[in-house]
């Protein structure tokens, strides 16, 4: 297992390298630049800006510089200066030197902020929203799918699957405002907008306090974002459990005299969840990266807005950083799925 994980981490580096190359190429192939305005800026200002951000260098050199800043760690005797150029995501004091790693560069939209600032302040909020939405999707989806399968072709099945269809077909942009109006404004159960956790975050991701305040804010947007995925999980769980219940070993379990509830819990559930676990990786990545509409709807200070505007504004470092980070999340999510998979199914051994 250890060797397998090591191999996957090397593969991760390759993925990140390829993704960075493609993104870099595409983003410079698209016409337009970061300092195009309706009313054009004076040429000498543009020249200065280009020089300031090294945009006047040949592309290959810019790319090399980017990789160097992001991937190659620095050891230096001086502590971080807090300046835009000396902002590393990871800084550790080792004895009397500083280990600094991952400088994702400045953002063109602000003179004093860096991409790392966005990663520190906005990204965790999006990640929290994505994780909560995944939990909602699992907590709603799995029981619904199990119920529908066990009560196949009964009112429960139809009801459950109708909820599932509702979940996939009503987009956040409708569901969100509806929820805000009903549960936020009219019933006043939840604050209509905002997010309960503020930076700095524990381990760069988690809220410092996971109390009622966090959940009061998180529940509505998480449900709005996760409901569609819960529908996917419900349908897959249903199909998978129905399939499993037809397996020979289920008949064996019944022939041994097991109570039907035990047949389901002990012999069917674990097997039927194996395919469901497989999609959790991509689903999680889709949720974390697909938070834009939810964030805008619920006024959540997350990553989505920066990512979308960075593309229209050709804010190259933000585009690069975000895409690399999303790729990282996707690969790690899939790795976690593979590990869970091996735990669920003893036939699978990685080595």
């Amino acid at each position, binding site marked *: 297992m250890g060797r397998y994980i090591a191999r996957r981490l090397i593969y991760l580096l390759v993925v990140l390298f390829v993704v960075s190359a493609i993104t870099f190429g595409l983003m410079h192939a698209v016409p337009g630049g970061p300092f195009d305005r309706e009313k054009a800026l004076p040429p000498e200002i543009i020249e200065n800006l280009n020089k300031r951000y090294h945009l006047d260098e040949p592309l290959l050199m810019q790319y090399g510089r980017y990789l160097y800043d992001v991937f190659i760690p620095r050891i230096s005797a001086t502590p971080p200066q807090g300046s835009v150029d000396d902002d590393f995501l990871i800084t550790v004091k080792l004895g009397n030197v500083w280990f600094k790693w991952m400088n994702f560069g400045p953002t063109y939209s602000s003179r004093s902020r860096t991409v790392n600032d966005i990663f520190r302040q906005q990204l965790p909020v999006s990640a929290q929203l994505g994780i909560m939405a995944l939990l909602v999707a699992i907590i709603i989806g799995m029981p619904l799918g199990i119920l529908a399968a066990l009560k196949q072709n009964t009112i429960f099945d139809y009801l459950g699957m109708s909820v599932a269809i509702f979940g996939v077909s009503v987009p956040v942009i409708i569901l969100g405002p509806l929820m805000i109006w009903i549960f936020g404004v009219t019933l006043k159960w939840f604050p209509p907008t905002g997010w309960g956790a503020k930076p700095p975050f524990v381990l760069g991701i988690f809220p410092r306090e996971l109390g009622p305040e966090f959940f009061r804010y998180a529940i509505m947007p998480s449900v709005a974002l996760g409901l569609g995925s819960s529908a996917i999980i419900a349908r897959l769980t249903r199909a998978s459990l129905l399939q499993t219940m*037809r*397996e*020979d*070993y289920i*008949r*064996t*379990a*019944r*022939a*041994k*005299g*097991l*109570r*039907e509830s*035990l047949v389901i819990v*002990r*012999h069917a559930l*674990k*097997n039927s969840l194996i395919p469901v676990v497989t999609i959790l990786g991509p689903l999680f990545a889709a949720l974390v990266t697909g938070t834009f509409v939810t964030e805008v709807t619920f006024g959540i200070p997350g990553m989505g807005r920066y990512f979308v505007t960075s593309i229209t504004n050709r804010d190259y470092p933000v585009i690069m950083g975000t895409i690399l980070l999303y790729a990282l999340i996707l690969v790690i999510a899939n790795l976690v799925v593979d590990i869970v998979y091996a735990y*669920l*199914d*003893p*036939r699978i051994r990685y080595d």
Partner: protein
Amino acid sequence: MTELLTVEGLETQFRTREGTVHAVNGVSFSLREGETLGIVGESGCGKSVTVMSILRLIPSPPGKVVAGKAIYQGKDLLKMSDEEIRHIRGAQISMVFQDPMTSFNPVLTIGRQVAEPLEIHMGMSRKQALERAAEMLAMVGIPNAKERLNDYPHQFSGGMRQRVMIAMALICTPQILIADEPTTALDVTIQAQIIDLVKRLRDELGMAIIWITHDLGIIAGLADRVAVMYGGYIIEMAQVDELYAHPTHPYTIGLLGSLPRMDETGHRRLISIDGLPPVLLEKPNYCPFAPRCKYAVERCWHENPPLMSVAPEHQVACWVDTQTGRER
């Protein structure tokens, strides 16, 4: 000998898109204490459905037992509550299935699965049950039984898995073991080993056996009596020696005629007789074997023959005396 299980007029149907499949059409037989009853017949003739109906393991829908009785210890298995039949399954009547590959749960250890009947029927603790499971595995010839409890099914070979399956079925020392083609998926040498194992266990534990197979060759050395099935009916039933000495139904004669000799090729073929097996979408009012029968007479096409006694302990469902060629 006293009768342990008496099946009478068992009828099982499946509702399918094409129509109602009449899989078992009024099957009656009995099983005596300590006896081994063979059920033979070609694929699809209703062997599995018959025994699964008795234990109420028919998937429903689409399947349904529409008539009949299966009396065990004075009670009808087909009428008792779910809870009652549950206490009989695996404790007093247990089953071994054909495919040792798919019949085990791939994500549970062999120990858990073999010990499970003891936990639910005997109220043993997990630990006690596992100890007993190791003994049982050793008894069916699994080397290092104790260490192998923690292995998963895929870590066993096909033959070993079928031994484990037998251990699992016999762990509560049932009165009846139903074996549904337990050796069909195995190669010939392993088949022979499994059959020897079952014979040995039968002598040690004294259970009665219903052994289902395609292969009349296996039955000869194992069974006391044989029931031959065709198209959802039992069409001949006799003591094993009598059946081999005086096969009477044209279908049985065909089966024995096409019985391949082991020494020629080393492999047994599955039975094959000219013509197609019957379509089960109707309950025929003629002899179901008539379309393939060399002996058929007019009457065969108008009336389905019931089982008739032709000798002590020997019944046949056929209008024609195949020895003389005359109608009965």
